C-alpha cells in the first residue's frame, strides 16, 4: 500500500532561477525504509520539506504529491503534525524544552491529548529509548547522540505513520551515529513506521534500506532497492555516496554480487594483497611540544587533560582520535593557547606559549578552526572576511561564495570558506576541530586537496576527528586519546591496521592489507 506518491513533482524556490526539484516521480509503500542520497544541494532537504507542509518553503510547486492518496496540501495541520514526524540535522536547535520530559510531552501538549493518552504514549516511548532515567535531566546536558535520539523519540510520541529525517547523523560521532541508525531501523522493523531519511553517508544505512533514492541537481537519477540501483551501472556520483564495500567493489571489480555491508565485503576482499608502501623518513624539527600538561575547566572540577605529552613535527598532518568527551577539543584549545593549562609545559616553535604576548601567537604562527564554522564569520557576506585578497588565488576558490551570507551556503562550503579564512594569516601550525563534519564526499575531496596544498608550503596540521577514512587519505600520524592522555601515536598505516574499531571499513574488510 502506498503511503506517499510523487508524480512529476517540481519545485522552484521563490526568487530562484533554477528549479530545486524537477519532475520527480516515485512511490513509497507503507513500512518501507527509504534512503535519499545525493551531493549537497541536490534537493534532498527540499523534497523532505515538501512532504512536511509546515516546513514547505515559499516557491512554486507543480505536479502531485500524495500522502495516503490525498494531496499533502489538503492534510489538516493537525493530521500533518500527528502523522508525519520530523527530525532535522541539528540536534541542538530542534529541542524546544529545557527538560527531557518536557520535550517528550511537547507534541502531545501541542495536539491537546488527554492526560491519559499523553502519559501513556510518553511513558512507552521513553521506556523504549531508555529516557526514564534522564526524564528530569536538562536537555543541554545530554550528549549530541542522546539529543538526536530525544528528537526522534519526541517525534514518535504522536504515533506518526511516516518519519522524515534530514541528515540526522551528520553532526554525530560514528558511535552515536551507529546507535541512532540502529534505533531507527529497529523502530521501522518493529512498529512498521515508514522512514524517509536523507543522508550523504550511507554506510550505516544501506543494509536497512528498502528503497534507495538518488537525487542529482533536483532530478531523480536512481530509485529502487539498493541491489537494483547498484546493478544498473551507477554513476560515479552515486558511487561516491555509497559505503566502502560498494566503492571498493566497483574499483576493483572482483565479479560476483556487490557487497553492501562490511560483513559481506569481508567475504569478497579478505584475500586482497597489501600494497607496497614507501617508508617515509621524516626528521623535521618539532613545532609543537606538550609536556605533562594538566587542564581542568574549574578549580573544583575534574581534570580533562591528565599529564598529556605530545610532540608534533613540522610539516606533519596529525590526526587525533578518541571518543566523545575524551578531551580532544580541550587538547587543541590548550595547544592553540585558547585555554590555559595549570601545570606542565606547552611550547610552540621552541618558545613557551605563555611567552607570546599581545596576540603575536596568532599572527603568522598559530591558528585554529573550531567545530562551529559559523563562529569565523562576523560579516554579512563571506567575501567581507577576505578584504583585499584575491579570492580566486586561494587554494580553494571561494569567489562564488563571496557575495553570500554565511548561513546561505551549504555546510561543506561554509567549512571550506572558514578553513581558507583561518589560513589567511599564513599560520605555520593549524588546529582543526572536526573539519569535515558536515561535508559530503565531494567536499571532503576538495578539503583533502586543499590540505595537501598547504602542507606542501610547510604548514603543520593537528586535526581532531572521528573520520578514519579521511585520516587514511591524508594523515601522516595518528594519535589515540583516552582518559586525558595520548595513549598511542604512530604512523597512520600502522595505527589503522592495529585498531579494530577506530579504523576504516576497507581495513576491516581486507584484514589490514589496505587502509
Amino acid at each position, binding site marked *: 500500500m502506498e503511503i506517499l506518491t510523487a508524480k512529476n513533482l517540481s519545485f522552484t524556490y521563490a526568487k530562484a532561477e533554477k528549479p530545486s526539484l524537477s519532475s520527480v516521480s516515485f512511490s513509497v509503500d507503507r513500512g518501507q525504509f527509504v534512503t535519499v542520497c545525493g551531493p549537497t544541494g541536490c534537493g534532498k532537504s527540499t523534497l523532505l520539506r515538501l512532504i*512536511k507542509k*509546515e*516546513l514547505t518553503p515559499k516557491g512554486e510547486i507543480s505536479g502531485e504529491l500524495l500522502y495516503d492518496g490525498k494531496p499533502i496540501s489538503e492534510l489538516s*495541520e*493537525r493530521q500533518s*503534525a*500527528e502523522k*508525519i514526524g*520530523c527530525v*532535522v540535522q541539528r540536534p*541542538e*536547535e*530542534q*529541542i*524546544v*524544552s*529545557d*527538560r527531557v*520530559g*518536557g520535550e517528550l*510531552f*511537547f*507534541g*502531545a*501538549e*501541542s*495536539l*491537546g*491529548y488527554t*492526560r491519559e493518552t*499523553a*502519559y501513556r504514549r510518553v511513558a512507552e516511548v521513553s521506556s523504549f529509548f531508555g529516557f526514564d532515567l534522564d526524564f528530569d535531566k536538562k*536537555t*543541554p546536558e545530554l550528549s549530541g547522540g542522546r539529543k538526536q535520539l530525544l*528528537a526522534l523519540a*519526541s*517525534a514518535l510520541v*504522536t504515533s506518526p505513520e511516516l518519519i522524515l529525517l534530514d541528515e540526522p547523523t551528520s553532526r554525530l560521532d560514528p558511535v552515536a551515529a551507529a546507535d541512532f541508525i540502529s534505533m531507527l531501523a529497529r523502530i521501522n522493523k518493529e512498529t512498521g513506521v515508514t522512514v524517509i531519511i536523507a543522508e550523504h553517508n550511507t554506510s550505516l544505512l544501506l543494509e536497512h534500506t528498502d528503497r534507495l533514492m538518488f537525487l542529482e541537481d533536483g532530478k531523480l537519477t536512481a530509485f529502487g532497492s539498493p541491489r537494483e540501483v547498484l546493478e544498473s551501472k551507477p554513476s560515479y556520483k552515486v558511487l561516491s555516496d555509497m559505503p566502502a564495500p560498494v566503492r571498493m567493489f566497483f574499483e576493483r571489480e572482483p565479479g560476483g554480487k556487490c557487497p553492501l555491508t562490511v560483513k559481506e565485503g569481508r567475504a569478497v576482499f579478505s584475500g586482497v594483497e597489501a600494497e607496497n608502501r614507501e617508508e617515509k623518513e621524516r626528521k623535521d624539527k618539532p613545532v609543537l611540544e606538550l609536556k605533562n600538561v594538566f587542564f581542568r575547566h574549574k578549580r573544583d572540577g575534574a581534570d580533562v587533560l591528565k599529564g598529556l605529552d605530545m610532540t608534533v613535527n613540522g610539516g606533519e598532518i596529525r590526526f587525533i582520535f578518541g571518543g566523545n568527551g575524551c578531551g580532544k577539543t580541550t587538547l587543541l*584549545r590548550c595547544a592553540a593557547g*585558547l585555554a590555559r593549562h595549570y601545570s606542565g609545559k606547552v611550547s610552540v616553535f621552541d618558545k613557551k606559549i605563555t611567552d607570546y604576548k599581545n*596576540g603575536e601567537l*596568532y*599572527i603568522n604562527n*598559530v*591558528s*585554529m*578552526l*573550531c567545530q*562551529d564554522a*559559523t*563562529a*569565523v*564569520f*562576523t*560579516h554579512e557576506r563571506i567575501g567581507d572576511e577576505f578584504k583585499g585578497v584575491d579570492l580566486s588565488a586561494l587554494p580553494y576558490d571561494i569567489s562564488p561564495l563571496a557575495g553570500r551570507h*554565511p*548561513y546561505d551556503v551549504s555546510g561543506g562550503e561554509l567549512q571550506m570558506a572558514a578553513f581558507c*579564512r*583561518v589560513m589567511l*594569516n599564513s599560520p605555520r601550525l593549524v588546529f582543526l576541530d572536526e573539519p569535515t563534519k558536515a561535508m559530503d564526499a565531494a567536499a571532503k575531496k576538495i578539503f583533502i586537496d586543499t590540505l595537501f596544498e598547504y602542507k606542501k608550503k610547510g604548514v603543520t596540521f593537528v586535526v581532531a576527528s572521528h573520520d578514519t577514512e579521511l585520516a587514511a587519505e591524508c594523515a601522516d600520524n595518528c594519535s589515540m586519546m583516552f582518559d586525558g592522555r595520548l595513549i598511542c601515536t604512530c604512523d597512520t598505516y600502522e595505527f589503522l591496521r592495529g585498531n579494530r574499531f577506530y579504523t576504516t571499513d576497507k581495513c576491516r574488510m581486507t584484514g589490514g592489507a589496505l587502509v
Partner: protein
Amino acid sequence: MTWFQKCNPFVSLIYFIAVTTLAAVYNNPYHTAVTLICTVIMFIMCGGKRKTALGFFVIFILTFIVNPIISKKGATPLLFIGNDPITLEAIVYGLNSASLIAAILFLFRCFTEMTDSEKLMYLLSPFSATAALTVSAVLRFTPLYVRQAEQIAEQQTALGAQGGKSIPEKIKHGGRVFSALSTWALENGIVTADSMACRGYGTGRRSFYTAYGFKKSDGLFLTFELILIVSTVVPSLFSSCTFGYYPGIVIPELNALFLLSASSYALLVLLPLIFEITDRIKWKYLLQKI
C-alpha cells in the same frame, strides 16, 4: 530546603510574592531585619554560593553608603563633608533600603534556585500555555547563547582578529561579534520554530501535563500562609505600622495591633524554615522506623 523545593509551586509562589511585597510596603527596619535574617538562612540552606553572597554584600554596602552621601534630608546632622551634612536619618534610611534590597536579592536567588522551568511553566500554564512554553524556550536558549558567544570570541582570537588596538576599532569588532551572535540566534530560532511547527504547535489549544501533586503538607502550608498574610495585613490597616525616616525618625507605636501584625509577618517569613525542620525531623523518625 528540600521540602520547599518539592512543594507545590503555587504555594511557594504565594510565599515569595507575599514576603517581597510586604517587606517593601512596610519598609520598616523591623520587617527588613526579619526578612534579611530569614532569607540569608534560606539562602544558605538552598546551597547558595559564597560568591553570590559576596556580590550581594557589595551591592548592600554601595546602597548603604550612597544614600547618606546623596540625600541631604533629615533633621539630625552627624557630621559635615564640606558643606554637605551627613544625617542620622539618611544613614538609617540607607541601612534599611540596603538591607531590603539585599534581602530581596537573597530571596530571588532562593526562588530561582528552587524554581526550575518546569515549575515556572506549571505556574504559567493556567494563564497561558504559550507563555509557559516561551519561558521554557528562553531558559533553554540562555546557556546556548553564552556558549556560542564564547565560541565566537575564541574563534576570533584564534584568527588574531580581536580588533585593532584603538578603542573605536575594538568597539567595532565587538559590534560585529554581537551581530554574528544575533544572526546565529535568529537562525537557531528558525530551526526551533520549524521543529515546533512539525510537532503541531499552534494547531489547537495547548494542554499542559506536568503535574505537581497537592500534598497534605502543601495544604497546611497554604492555610498557614494565608492566615498569616491576613493577620499581618489586617491589623496594620487599623494601626500605623509606618516607620518615618524624614525629617526625623518616627517609630510606630508598639501597640497590640502592631505586635500582632509584626509577629505574624515574622512567622510568615519563617514558615518555610519551620516546615523544613519539621520535615527533617519527620524523615529522621521515618527512617528509624524503616
